[in-house]
């Protein structure tokens, strides 16, 4: 990958990453993240990992991000303010900066990384990838399938709407803010979720 292309992609990646954490509206954050992931996927392709690059785009951008989008809509998330603990932000910023600095120092000064190695460019054709995946990493691969199955079951179990129980109508009118127990709250939530229509309130609102 040429240096110019790298810097273009790198700046784009950094900007979009900052966009993820700096924008008020979650949808905008998500868009920035999608851009970032695409950008990194392109970088993978540029680094020779063509298959993984496209997989990254298909899975991350095409599936996971859409899932996020769904959830944002489902929860009708609005733009949020940046209130909260100032100390946390301060320490977070300092810590993150220190982390970046430390990692950058490590990467730049560790001789085995920073010096261009022998770099036998066995590039990632899908054949070699598949060959490794289904021989050396076969067990891990199979376990991954189990993990995905478990994740599917778990996600369905978690997000499943609890069955509407009797005596719901009593709780239906109660305000969420005055609900005392989480269970009570969940009851009124599940009702009001029925009633409310998801309406986007964009950043200008």
């Amino acid at each position, binding site marked *: 990958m040429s240096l110019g292309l790298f810097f273009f992609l790198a700046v784009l990646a950094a900007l979009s990453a900052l966009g993820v954490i700096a924008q008020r509206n979650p949808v905008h954050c998500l868009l920035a993240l999608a851009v970032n992931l695409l950008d990194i996927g392109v970088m993978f392709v540029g680094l020779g990992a063509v298959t993984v690059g496209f997989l990254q785009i298909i899975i991350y951008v095409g599936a996971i991000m859409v899932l996020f989008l769904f959830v944002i809509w489902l929860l009708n998330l609005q733009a949020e303010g940046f209130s909260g603990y100032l100390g946390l932000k301060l320490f*977070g910023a300092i810590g993150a900066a220190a982390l970046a600095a430390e990692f950058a120092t490590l990467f730049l000064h560790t001789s085995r990384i920073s010096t261009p190695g022998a770099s036998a460019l066995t590039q990632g054709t899908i054949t070699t990838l598949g060959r490794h995946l289904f021989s050396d990493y076969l067990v891990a691969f199979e376990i991954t399938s189990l993990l995905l199955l478990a994740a599917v079951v778990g996600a369905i179990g978690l997000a499943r709407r609890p069955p509407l129980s009797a005596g719901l109508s009593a709780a239906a009118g109660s305000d969420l803010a005055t609900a005392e127990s989480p269970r009570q709250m969940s009851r009124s939530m599940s009702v009001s979720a029925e009633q409310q229509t998801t309406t986007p309130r964009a950043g200008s609102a």
Partner: protein
Amino acid sequence: MTHDFPALGLILLFPLLGVIFNIFFGQRCGRRVVNFIAPAAIFLAFAAALAAFATLLGMPRGAALGFDLWPWIEAGRFHFDIAFRFDALSGVMVLVVTGVGALIHLYSDGYMGEDEDYARFFAYMNLFAFAMLILVLANNLLLMFVGWEGVGLCSYLLIAFWYDNAEFAYNGRKAFIVNRVGDAGFVLGILTLISALASSGIWTLTFTEMAKHRETLAPVATLAGSLLFLGATGKSAQIPLYVWLPDAMVGPTPVSALIHAATMVTAGVYMVARLNFLYALSSQAMTIVATVGAVTAIFSATIAIVQPDIKRVLAYSTISQIGYMMLGVGVGAFASGIFHLMTHAFFKSLLFLGAGSVIHALDGEQDMNHMGGLKRTMPVTWVTMLVAGLAISGIPPFAGFFSKDAILASTYASGHIWLWAVGVVTAGLTAFYMFRLLFLTFHGASRIDASKRGHVHESPAVMTVPLVILALCCLIGGWIGLPDGILWGDAFGRFLMPICPTLKLTPAATLARGSLSPAVLSAIAFGLAVSGIALAWSFYVMTPGLPARLARNLSPLYRMLLRKYYIDEIYNTLVSRPLFWLSQVVLFRGVDSAIIDGAVDGTGLGVEASGEGLRRIATGNVQHYALAYLAGVLAIAGYYVYLVHRH
């Protein structure tokens, strides 16, 4: 030398099957089945033992039968098997245990058959037989210890058999605790032997193997012998640990006969005889054994003189007789000790069973002051007990004469003149208190309570048959060990000689041997015994008022004897009270409450307090946790940055 003989397993198997049956099916199958199964198990074991014994007799002297069941412990280089050895010594013991045991089981059918908990009783009895057989058949010290503990457990269980009586349960605990003291010594003895042997690269406790390493054992012989003998004093009720045995008489009378007279309490004697190679290495240990035995013999005989309770008299008599056995093995006459063990098993179990018969007839009455004149109503019991009394008193040709005489002769021959004197006096005392017992019970006027007088009766056949058989044994059982030179001489001693040879202890023995001939020695003992009987006759038959007068005139002495030299009180004051005090004040209030509880509570309080303080960190905000996490990552990464920059 050792011949494989798997049928040895049968000797153990039958009682074990009896235990299993009685525990799991006994109460369900009913009395008749249990009353048949339990003695049958022991009779079968006796038959197997007889077969083994016959095989042994057919083999050359000193041979042994062996049976390796399976490996037991394999720890490092240590290797113990569940393995059994049937030689002359253990053969005699097995025959005594199973033979006398079988008769007592049979007797128990009559004595205990009507008890509510018959299945439990017979399960315990069979279990006792099983444990005792393991004890005597074991071919190594560790397996022997298993049996040793097993019989201790059964003893405890059977003493406290009627556990709903608080005093009985207390006496059971007493027996158990006193035995623990002795067993601690036994364990220490075993460990001493192990450490001595292992440091020389000998990784076994098998008797025959140990016997080959005398030079290794010699340095620790005194220590190990004394410690093991401490265990024997506990199990065999010798000074200072005899105190549990008289109290153990609260158990059912067959138990007293089997465990606390015939078999278990003689385990210490058997152990000393079994380890004769060890004791032979240390004259100090031998002296301790002999002295303790002699002192115990005369000490408990004096107590027995005045006790009113028929079973207590027999209990002290047992202690005294075991003292004789200890004296015998202590002076190196192992065969004589075992011989006396065997004859004692006959006459003492007979005495107990007879006493049981009397108690049974008198509906639980044990005080001899409320007996008398029973010889007409209970002729079989009277005759058989008379035989036993003659035997224990050492009247020829009854069994006790030969065995007691052999011990006294050996003692005299070994040069312990004082011990011999003690033994002879004890023989006189024995004759006195034994005939006191007989006269008070069977002769004179009846002092039986009016309420019980009506149904005094001779016991049923199932109880009298064992009495008769045992009486026959008392009569002729001693003839296998006649003094040298008469008929076949000391066949028993010759039979046992390869296993436990008689020791020639001191040069003084040769000096002493010349002074008095064996015949004279026998005559002295016999004379004392006869005079004891005569004294008893004059005291309790001719002039029944004399003892009471004497008691009044010699009140302090009488009371001291009646109160058993205040030993229980002394123990109470010297041992129990300080122990209780130590436990209550120092250990409980001081150590447990203050230190241990304090540490535990303090730990809890400390954790609680620190948690109270630290929980402020748990804000519940995941970002705070993440920040802490980041700090950790920063530290680790920082360390690597430091490493990178140092190079």
